[in-house]
């Protein structure tokens, strides 16, 4: 039976969650219960809330606790604001090396920047490279011009030993450039959080191969339960091997011994 892993979810506090009936704070237990209800084995979760106050620390703390309590089910993204300079790098090292988080998530909205601002980003990327953890870059959406798949490919080409996740497949607004960007940078993968357009996924599979695509949910902004059926039931052109890769085995490969 295919083990299903979610490469892009959120654990922590956001008042917005209550607007549709969720608790304001989603902790490790909420995630475990939700995953069990949806048949999902594990998830890589980030602090919610673009540009959140306190540099995401309260939620990073929650994630670190959840990862410690459920080391085979929950995996953590660190999230930092690059304009904090050396402080951000110290934070990143702390959350990865001392608290056991597994990856870095970057969203240009967090600190009003662009992925082609390499003077700002390169010190962080050098740190990530030395820490040997993957980095997810949010791409697409209304601020897509600041965070395109091509910008991620440019970065990836300069850090060939690191793995970079092109978040949300560039969807919407930048998905047309996704395949070319991934072909240019072999150390990139992409994930499908909030991408429910089947053709976007199918074209990407055909262009770069299923082994470079991970299932993401964006949960709880989109319900976790919506993500697996896309690949289990609604992509008939995929082989079972491709399906298994997207749903789980690529995630296991990405995080290696952690899983």
């Amino acid at each position, binding site marked *: 039976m295919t083990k299903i892993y979610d490469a892009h979810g959120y654990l922590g506090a956001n008042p*917005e*969650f209550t*607007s*549709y*009936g969720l608790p304001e704070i989603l902790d490790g237990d909420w995630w475990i219960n939700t995953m069990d209800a949806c048949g999902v084995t594990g998830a890589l979760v980030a602090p919610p809330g673009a540009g959140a106050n306190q540099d995401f620390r309260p939620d990073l703390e929650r994630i670190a606790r959840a990862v410690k309590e459920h080391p085979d089910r929950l995996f953590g993204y660190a999230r930092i604001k690059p304009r904090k300079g050396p402080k951000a790098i110290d934070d990143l090292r702390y959350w990865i090396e001392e608290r056991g988080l597994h990856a870095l998530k970057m969203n240009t909205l967090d600190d009003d920047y662009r992925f082609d601002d390499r003077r700002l980003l390169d010190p962080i990327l050098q740190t990530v490279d030395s820490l040997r953890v993957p980095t997810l870059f949010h791409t697409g*959406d*209304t601020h897509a011009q600041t965070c395109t798949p091509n910008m991620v490919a440019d970065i990836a080409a300069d850090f060939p030993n690191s793995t970079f996740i092109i978040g949300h497949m560039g969807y*919407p*607004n930048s998905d047309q450039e996704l395949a070319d960007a991934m072909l240019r940078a072999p150390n990139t993968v992409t994930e499908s959080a*909030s991408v*429910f*357009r*089947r*053709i976007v996924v*199918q*074209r990407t599979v*055909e262009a770069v191969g299923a082994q470079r695509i991970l299932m993401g949910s*964006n949960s709880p*902004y*989109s*319900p976790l*339960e*919506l993500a697996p*059926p*896309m690949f289990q*039931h*609604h*992509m*008939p*052109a*995929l082989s079972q091997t491709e399906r298994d890769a997207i749903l789980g085995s690529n995630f296991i490969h990405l995080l290696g011994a952690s899983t």
Partner: protein
Amino acid sequence: MICDAHAYLGNSPGWAQMGLPVPLDGHAWVEMMDRSGVDRALVAPPGVGAQQDFKPDMDRIAQAMRDYPERLFGFCRVKPRRGQTAIDELRMRVEEQGFRAIKMNTLDDDYRLDDRALIDPVMQAANEFGIVVFFHTGDAHGETCQPSMVADIAVDFPSTTFIIGHCGYVGYQHQTAPSLKRAPNTVAETAGLLTPAIIQGIVDEVGAQRVLIGSNGPNTPIELPALMVNKYMNKLNPEEKALITGGNFERILRLD
């Protein structure tokens, strides 16, 4: 009753690439609906700016409506720059074939929803024929098709119901609730929007009777919108969920 207010029936090359049968006809659609727990769907010809003015797919939709008159309902789709030809086509589809609504997407004919000299003759025809008007809003070309532009049109045609497609998502969703408030003869539909917070925000502003689920199916799996509303939007009471997932559809299309 689960009703999908925004889906596609016909022939799209992308569907074959995804492994779906093409053309996707009424029989295939009803099989898909049965598998997905969807009772009714309002379907449009796929393919922005399609050649042949969408006619082959509108013929397929007409046949599907004849085959499944209680399950499938049709959007006509026209290019407004065709002028009287577009209006004649609309009249034929409505009066002779029973189409219930018109779908307009500015990409179909490179126009803007605030080009009223172009749009208004089509709106007058829709008003005369008593059909619902659906406008695609938002997306990469959202600047040409904003919810506020739909509201501007709607206030000038108060007897017609206008659907703000996709709730302005992505890029213009913040306009949707104010537009719905300004034009009481508008409703919003959710295709492409599987994020509960945005939909709940609109419901909180204007009420559940102004929101319908849409799927974008088969581009997106058609069971997801109702699953999201019924299972994951738990500030809605059962009556509100029933309106959003079907009741509003039946009221607007006068099916009850």
